[in-house]
Structure formats: C-alpha cells, structure tokens
C-alpha cells in the first residue's frame, strides 16, 4: 500500500468543503425536484463534491508514492501559528471595537497572519506577497493610493532576498508615477490619492 499524499490531501480538502457546504446548506429550503428551492442545487453539488472527494481519497491510498515537499520544523510550526494569530487578531479587534467598519478588522487579521507565516523562510514568498496585498487594502482609503503603493511594494519586495534598498526605492518611484498616470490621469478611478487626515 503506497500512499499518494498529494491526492490524499486533495481528497480530504474536497470532502471537507463538501461537508461544510452541506452543513451551511441546512438553512435553505430544498423544495422538490419539480419546484426546486434555493437549497436543491447546492445539495446536489455538495453530494457530488463529497463523492468525488471520497473517490480521490480512496484511490490515493494505493496510487502513491507521491510525497509532499519536506517541511522544516519552522515551516510546520508557522502554519498553525499564523492561523491562530489570524483568528486571535480578528476576535480581539472585533471585541475591542478597534478599527470598526470597512473590513479593517478582517484586513488587519489577514495582514498579521501572513506576516507571522513569513517567519519561516520557506513561506516567505507566500506570506509576504499576500501581506503586501492585504496592507494595500488596509492603507488605501485612509492613507491614499501613493502611500498604499509604497507599503505594498516594500512588504512584497521583502519576499525576494535579491532586492536591494536602492532598487526598491527606484521601483517605488517608477511604479507610483506609472500608476498615477494610468489609473488617476488616464482612467480616473475614484480613489483618494493622498492621505485623508492631512
């Protein structure tokens, strides 16, 4: 019996998604085959999804070996830590009524979680690219487009160890000018360009 780990996990993910979806679907009226309610198609979909997941899972028990890439200890540790930090940040900010509105709580939790994930060198590209993206969302409406770009580029640049400060500064100037020209001057999207509190 050779286990195909990649397929085994794929199957498990599909099953998990199906079960969660099926459970969430409980609140919708099913109706019947003739007059389908809002819950009918989701029910069919999640049954099929679960079935496929199970098939993938069972076949994976014999179709290996197909192991995952080796994880270092730090990488193993960083994943649950990042998930925990995400939820703690979310619920603490939510409970304290800090930064309410406009999904600031969600964005901050994502940003902090992704930064924590980047502690492990192997997850650095994954964590920092997403952290930069989330930071852009966090900063955009209060600090304006220019500063949001700076924040996003700086954080995302940390993902590649080849970057040097000079190159990053040059890139920031170039991209700020380019984005201003394309999005503000030419396309005129409605977004604050400079900080709102000044």
């Amino acid at each position, binding site marked *: 019996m050779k286990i195909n780990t990649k*397929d085994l996990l794929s199957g498990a993910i599909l099953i998990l998604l199906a079960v969660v979806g099926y459970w969430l679907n409980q609140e919708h009226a099913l109706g019947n085959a*003739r007059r389908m309610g*809002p819950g009918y198609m989701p029910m069919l*979909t999640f049954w099929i999804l679960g079935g*496929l997941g199970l098939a993938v899972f069972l076949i994976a028990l014999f179709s290996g070996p197909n192991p995952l890439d080796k994880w270092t200890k730090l990488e193993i540790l960083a994943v649950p830590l990042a998930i925990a930090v995400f939820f703690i940040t979310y619920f603490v900010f939510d409970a304290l009524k800090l930064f309410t509105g406009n*999904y600031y709580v969600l964005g901050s939790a994502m940003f902090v979680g992704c930064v924590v994930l980047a502690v492990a060198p192997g997850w650095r590209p994954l964590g920092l690219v997403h952290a930069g*993206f989330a930071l852009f969302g966090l900063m955009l409406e209060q600090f304006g487009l220019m500063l949001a770009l700076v924040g996003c580029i700086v954080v995302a640049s940390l993902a590649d160890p080849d970057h040097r400060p000079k190159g990053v500064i040059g890139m920031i100037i170039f991209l700020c000018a380019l984005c201003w020209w394309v999005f503000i001057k030419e396309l005129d999207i409605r977004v604050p360009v400079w900080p709102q509190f000044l």
Partner: protein
Amino acid sequence: MELLLQNLGHGFGVALTIDNLLFALLGCLIGTAIGVLPGIGPVATISLLLPITFGQPATTAIIMLAGIYYGAQYGGSTTAILLNLPGEVSSVVTTLEGYKMARNGRAGAALTIAALGSFFAGTVATILVAASGPLLTSIALSFGPADYFSLMLLGLIISAVLAQGSVLKSIGMVVFGVALGLVGTDVQTGQQRFTFGVPELSDGIGFVSIAMGMFGIAEIILNLERPEARSVLTQKVGSLFLTKEEFRRATPAVLRGTVVGSLLGILPGGGASLASFGSYMMERKVSRGRAQFGNGAIEGVAGPESANNAASQTSFIPLLTLGIPANAVMALMVGALIIQGIQPGPRMVEAQPDLFWGLIASMWIGNLMLLVINLPMIGMWVKLLQVPYKYLYPSILVFCAIGVYSLNNNVFDVYQTVIFGILGYIFSKLRMEPAPLLIGFVLGPMMEEHLRRAMLLSRGDATVFIERPISATMLGIGAVAILAMALPSLRKGKDKALAE
C-alpha cells in the same frame, strides 16, 4: 455567402474605427509582451486588465482582451525559439525543434515560419468563426433548457477530462467551482445563500478576485520559489527568409496545424496549448521530415505554432454562439461580457452584431498587426526578457491590487483576492488544476437556472434529459469521454501529450 460578406463588411466598419484599432493594437502589444515573459500568462493579464476595460464600450473591451489572448500565442514562440524558454504553455513544444533550428543558425527562418504560419492559421480560423457563428446560433436557438443543461455538463466534463493530471481531481475542481458560483442571492426566491451576512457577497463572489488570486498572485509566489533561470541571447537571429526547401516542407505542416488547431480549439477545455501538443504529435508521425525531428525540423515549428493560433481563435466559437466558455480565458470573457451587461448566448449574434462581427474583423486585423509587431521588432521583445523578475512581480502585484479595488471601489474585493491567492497556492502544490474551477464557477449559475427550468417543464421528471435527442446525445458523449479516460492506455497517451 453574400450575407456573410455583408456582415463581414459591417464588422470591418466597426473594427476599423480609430478607437477599436488602437485598442486592438494595445491588446496585441500587451499580449506579445506577456507572451514573451515567462511567468505571466494570458489568464492573469486579462483578469488584471478587466477592470480597466469597464470604461470602454463592450466591443472595444472584448477586442482588446481578445488581442491579448492571440497576441500571447505569437509572443510565446519568440522566446521558445531564441532562448529555449517557452513564454507560454502553448509554446512548450516549439522549444523542441525551434531551439534546435536556432542552434543550427536558422533562428530567423523559425521565427518567420512561426509568424507566417500563425497568420495563415489565424486567417482561416477567423473565416471559420464567421461562417460557423450564424449556423451554430440557429441550431442553438432550438435548444430547450434540458439541452442547455446537458450541453454545459458536457462542456464541464470535457474541460475536466482534457485538463492536466488526474481526471477525478479535475472534476472535483469543476464541482467546487460550481459550488463557489452558488454564493449570492438565489435568482428565483431572492434568498441569500452562503453569504455569512456580508453584503458584498450578495452579488456572488467576484470572479475577477478568483481569477487574479489563483492565476495572478499564486503564480507570482510559485515563480519566486523557483530559482530564476534567465539565459541571454547568444545566437544570431540570422536571415529571416526561408529557403525554398524549408518553404516546401513547412507548407503542408502549416495546413495540417491549422486544421488540428481549429478543431481542438472548439473543444471545451481545449484551446491553444492542447492544439500545439496535438499538432506536434501529428507532425512527428506523418510529416515528410519526421526523420529530422530532434535536429531542428521546420515542421515541428510550423505545425504547432499555426495550431495554437488557430485554436486561440476558434475557441471563441462556443462562447460567441452558445455562451459556453471553452477554457479559462473564455470564462474571463464571459465575465467581461456580463459586467458589460451582455448575456453571452445564441442571441448575441442577433442582438449585438457590432460586437460579434466587429470582433471577428478585428481578429484578422490583429493578426496582421502581430505580423508587423513580431518580425521586424523581435530585438525589442527579447530585450524585455532582461527585466529581472524581482522588479516585475511587484509591478504585477500593484496592478492587481488597484485593478481589483477599482472593480467596485471596495476593499472587501482586495481581501477576497488574498483568500483565493492562498487557496490557489495550496491547490497548485497539490496538483489541483485551477482552470476547470474557473469554468465551473462561470457555468454553475447558468446550469442551475436551466436545471430548474427543465425540471419545472417536465414536472419533476428527470428522464427528460434522456428523452430529448439533443440532450441525450450530449450526455452520451460525456459518458464516453469519462469512460475513455478510465482506460489506462488512453490515459497514458494523454499524460504523455500533456507532459511538459
């Protein structure tokens, strides 16, 4: 015939306006650029540029987006031939013979035949789209809801069967895509489904977020994890002219490639990459120069390059006539049309003649432009490769970020994209293909509507799907496709054909 010419004339009238010409050129330029650059493909680029096109009229927007797709097929061959570095998946096989030709000092000839073959194939495919459009549309108008449902189901099955890797996993991804498409307000009862009380989700999950996260951002991270391998151009391009012998050998290959590409492009799940693989396999078996394969046979460049360009255009046929996207790029086109307020489907040819005929005419004009953009300006495109990826990826990232925000001027879309980026990364690590997911996501809501209507009309009797001949045929083909993939020999053949 006369009507066709009249319609094409109308199309050229639309395509030749200054605005449309400019945007076709812009699309072709962007397409060539991303075709040359490995690590960013047409799906990511089109989803990146979607928000920018909203300000334009629908026709102009689609003309530009289409230009990106077929422009990428031209650009991808340049680096494949000169640097042994496929810019796109569809150019992978071109490296096999094309790079050998370059090492033999015939890089110029390889580039010329790739461009000329693509142009010829593009012209034929354009005519095919124009001719089959009204024909297929008239057939499609006789489809009932049950037939539509089965047709879409068939499309989903074939797109999963033809995807890389395990068929079961691909079907799983399709179904997950359908499930994601269920989020939002139920059209018939107005009930909110799976929205968790988030008002932004009541219109459904933003498909730009899914496409950008899974194809744009996840791709950036995967590229960052790979060590950068950039070779510099060492070969001389050499004469661009073909010798008589080369021309004689390439011509039948171009013709075969055009036929193979046009057919495989129409298939759901097909498109440019499948077509170039198919054509390469064929040339290796039937062409007169098959003995020279591996040493720079010109047939191995002429065939696949013609095929991928033909396919990138005929894959518009199911979209424009039936409203069914054949691949991930077409799924994005559906999204672009819907955001513009146009429901893709058989009525589009009648209701939007400007869009349909204008797009077809612009495809031909775009191919002509690409010939000029590519051949004399090849040096400029190769220079583009010297931009290191470390400067490229932050640029892609900020364009993604601004683009996704400006969709609804809402930061929720930005955070949504983060989620799909992480999900896309996990999926690609587990070899779960994101392309079938996107097609499922786009088709899911339409399938639900047709399923409900069909079952209402048949009073809850599911046998309607087998009793109607069109529907039964579709389901039959789908069943055969799944069974065929269960045969080990066929599956191995597919894996071999799709292996990079």
